[in-house]
């Protein structure tokens, strides 16, 4: 017997009450990074009904990605397929409603029309690209939801149109990491020594939380968003939400 609402793809989402499904269906999100977080985030956006996703990533699939990336296969790794292309194709198979536009490029080298984005999702693996995304989101007044992971730990920061930004939360230790990354970069390749620990349950958890925050923003429920930063530790099962003040010396404020 058919269930009530069984012929409406978004029926169960509508039943939540707080999700503005119509706004979600019409929305256009920018996702930067198509690695472990990006795979999950784009999957969650597509299944949630987001109409359009612009996806930026310059990298190709490697075998070591396959312990945590939903859309990648051995074939993608052996063929060195572009991550953005593979995720775009996979997400569009999940939802015929969702159009994913892949850009195989560094975000810093991509010429995007920022005025069309409703929410920006950072699924990145480096501070330099995060700072780029943060400053552009601030400049264009697009809410930015950043996620990061390291092993069994994760972090989500919601950068609203008003309030502190990602750079406000950074200190000298972040800039030292940034300098080290620069010193390890040669040509088109960035070397990470040692590679970061990563596994799918933590990355999937953080991507789910990240998209949940995005859905709140798209649904006009910013009041329910993380304010301002959430740290998660899978091994102690602890999550911690911390407030952050605007840094008066931050270049993204007072402009």
């Amino acid at each position, binding site marked *: 017997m058919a269930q009530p609402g069984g012929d409406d793809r978004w029926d169960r989402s509508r039943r939540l009450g707080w999700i503005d499904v119509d706004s979600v269906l019409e929305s256009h999100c920018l996702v930067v990074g198509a690695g472990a977080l990006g795979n999950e985030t784009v999957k969650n956006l597509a299944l949630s009904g987001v109409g359009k996703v612009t996806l930026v990533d310059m990298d190709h699939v490697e075998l070591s990605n396959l312990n945590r990336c939903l859309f990648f296969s051995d074939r993608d790794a052996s063929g060195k397929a572009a991550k953005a292309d593979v995720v775009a194709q996979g997400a569009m198979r999940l939802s015929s409603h969702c159009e994913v536009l892949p850009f195989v490029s560094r975000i810093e080298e991509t010429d995007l029309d920022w005025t069309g984005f409703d929410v920006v999702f950072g699924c990145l693996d480096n501070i330099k690209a995060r700072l780029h995304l943060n400053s552009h989101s601030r400049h264009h007044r697009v809410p930015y939801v950043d996620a*990061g992971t390291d092993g069994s730990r994760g972090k989500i920061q919601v950068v609203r149109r008003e309030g502190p930004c990602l750079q406000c939360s950074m200190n000298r230790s972040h800039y030292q990491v940034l300098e080290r990354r620069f010193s390890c970069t040669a040509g088109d390749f960035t070397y990470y020594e040692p590679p*970061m620990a990563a596994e799918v349950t933590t990355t999937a958890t953080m991507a789910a939380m990240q998209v949940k925050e995005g859905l709140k923003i798209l649904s006009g429920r910013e009041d329910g968003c993380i304010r301002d930063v959430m*740290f998660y530790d899978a091994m102690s099962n602890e999550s911690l939400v911390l*407030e952050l003040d605007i840094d008066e010396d931050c270049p993204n404020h007072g402009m």
Partner: protein
Amino acid sequence: MTIEVTIRNAENGSNLNMELEPHTTIEDIIEGAAEFWHKEAGAYVLRRGKKLLKGQSTVMDAGLKNEDVLELIPDPEGG
């Protein structure tokens, strides 16, 4: 006037007592604690209660008091 605070290591729960001058910055505390625990180079933040402390703030700016407990948290960079 110096104050003494306890720094908690969020990764293993161990504690460290630090004596701080009023002009010591949060960044100095982060560096000192990371060095003491021989942490790998990486990004860290410091919290007091529900507040994430600004790196450039001094002990005085941040209103730190004797016997405060601060926590050093790794800031995950991976994606």
